């Protein structure tokens, strides 16, 4: 009897956890905790000094943490309308540069009050606004410093807000299908939300982070690379793939050998790319490797469909993919 109970106790924590609960508890919640902590540290660093290596280090840590959860837009981020407030990219019209330039030119007093800075255009908020202020400042001096601090403070406050909301929302996700759960009316709906996070996260890497700077062979577009000013273009791809792989592993009930292999190929390829800001898209040798990485990501997308989506009976949107 004692043995049976012990065995039960040993089994329960894992056996009782559904794929959805594993994804939420082992990846999503810790990811948001890390995001809140890292952005709080970024805010502290910015209030201490609005330029310098310590702030840049805190910025990079916080950006890594954001990449760790940026694909989890369903739930609090979407409900609070904060997707673009964290990351306004792609930005083909340079809205971030224009909006920051305008704030600085006007010395807009909105920056003096971090409590209301969240009301300014989302293009002047989040990681890409802060990147401008740190790596290609449209202005310097007291006002620019105040602006940097306001962006960091707002970012930290928003991160805290979505992280707090996730502690409740986690229960909504993991109780999918229960009476009174109007958000997720079945397990399948919750599974689909996580699967969509995986597939759209991968699609964003392929179609935006890689395809935009690659452009065409005749016309590479290095200035379209994400976070090129902070030299994080490749790092964002790496961090995103790591986070998506971890979420896949937690989410999937079955072994995913082809998917695992596809991720390994991508990480091996990344190690051979010597162009952190993807300026190498204009250099034939580097370009070849970045193009090959894009193919690797496509393989990951395909194996995600085969080994996770199909295995769970999930497919991408019938209408979303139709294009008519």
């Amino acid at each position, binding site marked *: 009897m004692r043995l049976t109970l012990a065995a039960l106790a040993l089994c329960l924590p894992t056996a009782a956890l559904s794929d959805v609960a594993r994804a939420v508890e082992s990846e999503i919640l810790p990811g948001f905790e890390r995001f809140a902590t890292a952005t709080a540290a970024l805010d502290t660093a910015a209030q201490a000094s609005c330029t310098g290596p310590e702030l840049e280090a805190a910025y990079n840590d916080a950006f890594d943490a954001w990449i760790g959860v940026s694909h989890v837009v369903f739930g609090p981020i*979407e409900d609070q*309308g904060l*997707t*673009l407030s964290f990351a306004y990219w*792609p*930005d*083909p*019209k340079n809205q971030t540069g224009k909006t920051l330039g305008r704030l600085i030119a006007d010395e807009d007093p909105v920056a003096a009050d971090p409590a209301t800075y969240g009301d300014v*255009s*989302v*293009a002047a908020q989040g990681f890409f606004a802060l990147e401008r202020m740190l790596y290609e400042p449209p202005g310097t001096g007291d006002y620019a410093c105040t602006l940097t601090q306001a962006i960091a403070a707002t970012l930290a406050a928003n991160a805290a807000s979505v992280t707090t909301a996730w502690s409740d929302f986690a229960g909504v996700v993991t109780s999918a299908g229960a009476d009174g759960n109007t958000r997720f*009316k079945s397990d399948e*709906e919750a599974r*689909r*939300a996580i699967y*969509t996070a995986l597939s759209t996260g991968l699609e964003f890497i392929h179609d935006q982070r890689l395809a935009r700077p690659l452009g065409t062979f005749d016309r590479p577009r290095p200035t379209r690379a994400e976070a090129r000013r902070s030299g994080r273009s490749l790092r964002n791809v790496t961090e995103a793939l790591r986070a998506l792989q971890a979420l896949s592993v937690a989410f999937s009930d079955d072994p995913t050998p082809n998917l695992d292999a596809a991720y390994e190929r991508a990480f091996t390829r990344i190690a051979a790319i010597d162009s952190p800001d993807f300026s190498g898209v204009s250099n034939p040798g580097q370009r070849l490797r970045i193009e090959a990485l894009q193919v690797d990501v496509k393989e990951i997308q395909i194996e995600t469909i085969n080994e996770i989506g199909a295995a769970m009976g999930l497919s991408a*949107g*019938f*209408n*979303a993919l*139709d*294009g*008519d």
Partner: protein
Amino acid sequence: MPSRRAILAGLAAATALPRAGWADAGAPSHVTAALDKSGAFALYGLRPDGALAFRVPLPARGHAAAVHPTAPEAVAFARRPGTFALVLDCQSGAVLGELTSPPGRHFYGHGAFSRDGTRLYTTENIVDTGEGRISIWSRSEGYRRIGDFPSGGIGPHEVIRIPGTTRLAIANGGIRTHPATGRDKLNLDTMRPNLTIAAEDGTHLDTAGVPDAMHQNSLRHITARADGLVACAFQWQGDAFDSPTLLALYRAGQGLDFIPFDDAVTRQMVGYAGSVALSSDGTGLAVTSPRGGLVVSVDIATRASTIARRPDICGVAPGSDAIIATDGLGQVHRLSDRLQPLASHPLAFDNHLVAI
């Protein structure tokens, strides 16, 4: 005890001829194409409560249907670039006839009946020249094709009739495609979408083009109010992150009036509006973005908009007291200030929901 078949046959005999009404088909309020779990495509009738009223098998993926103004008859169109359309008796499920696009042409997936119900209009592409045409088919002659006229542009996608009138509205998407290259878009640099208003005899009455600065905003789906207001939903062919707004209102002689959304909403629509519908009282409209998984509701008078989220939501049509929406996960919703589930089916509802 008589068999179900006998009862149905008796019902059909009692009510079908000469002028059966829509109430006979299990009182459906809407029709839509869908895919079932076995991979089969069919046209379904939906009742006001979201329940299924009938099912008529289709040979391939459907797109939209033209509903006859009085008879329980619908013409279901193949998905672009299909060449068939089926005339269906929605009472018995019988296929009454089949339309085949003329040689060298294909359909775009939409059509509309004349006010008196005697003629059907279909949007077509002349493959060799890329010219858009509207064919006219005579219902009383077994849907014989009796003529055609220019659509007023390239790539006419949806044609509708403005309710209560004999005027047609034609959404010329502007994009040239060729079946040999599937859905490849051949003229993105030069495309010029427009809305063309035509009389039922084909006379063009007005044309409203998109501004030069957004000439890649392809007009695809439209819906109209009896006063002639046409709501227009677009699909942006440029950089999705540089997308202009995807909704405009047309009023006679006043061109297209684009309705801006919040930048964040436009970005989430990923340059793609799937369907558009007016509320039955004509004061509001809804435009869907299946890619963004959201539906935007707009108050026409104030132009204020609100969003509701649902993955793969696409079909929208007026219901008695609210807009009804369908999604690729088989859900039927009532759209009030939020999406309220009405019914759930093991189906993937296709792009369009058509009110009867």
